[in-house]
């Protein structure tokens, strides 16, 4: 087992973990905008981590440079796509889910979420 492989496995597993949380967020969160929070942030970091892992595994070559280029592109494009969809929803008048209309949560739980 080389050092390269260990670094690759670490990055890929971290990427997979954030992919999983992003997908669960896409499934579980209550409304459209909150789901965009999950995919917009989670997928960006997960894709970049996975691509870095693959580039490390492949070694130093032109192909790795291409992989890094894809990572840079995703880093720019993913927030933009998220913004485009959320702007479409905002212009269409989709109202965000709020505590009053959904399940009323207690104050201390909300504070705990804010501290993170």
């Amino acid at each position, binding site marked *: 087992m080389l050092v390269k492989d260990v670094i690759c496995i670490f990055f890929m597993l971290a990427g997979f973990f954030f992919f999983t949380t992003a997908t669960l967020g896409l499934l579980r969160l209550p409304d459209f905008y909150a789901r965009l929070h999950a995919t917009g942030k989670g997928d960006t970091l997960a894709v970049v981590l996975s691509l870095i892992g693959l580039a490390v595994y492949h070694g130093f070559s032109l192909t790795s440079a291409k992989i890094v280029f894809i990572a840079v592109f995703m880093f720019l*494009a993913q927030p933009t796509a998220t913004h*485009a969809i959320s*702007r479409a929803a905002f212009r269409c008048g989709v109202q965000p889910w709020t505590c009053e209309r959904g399940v009323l949560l207690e104050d201390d739980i909300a504070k705990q979420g804010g501290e993170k």
Partner: protein
Amino acid sequence: MTRDSHDVIVKTLARLLMPFMVVFALYVVMHGHHSPGGGFQGGVILAAGFVLLVISHGLEQTRKRMSEKVAEIISSIGVLIYGGIGVLCLILGGNYLDYGTLSKLLRVTPAEARSLGILGVEIGVALAVMAVMCTVFFAIFTAGESSQDDRSVK
């Protein structure tokens, strides 16, 4: 519909991305015999670049670079390149699109002539595909109105 959409983020990203996208499409076209890709795929990526330009910068800005009339001319030129190379092979005594016979004209070995012939055909296909895709997209985007009558499009 045709006015600027004033979305700064998509506009700026499209502006930064567009030249790289076109160069990538040309790479896909030119390296069709070494890697996946070729005329059709490269043409589609080129057309996707123009679609992104229409979406972000509006129809008027895009018409300065690629209007319907130019698209028609380019599609004809693409088909002409494709058919011309084929007929050239026919004239030089081979079959249709038999690139080996081009070696007499280009003064290279038949293998190199095949490579160059395929490259020419792929450029023709890419131009035709790009122009036709752009025409289709313009027609859908303007809901079938003619290009001169801009006010009828809301």
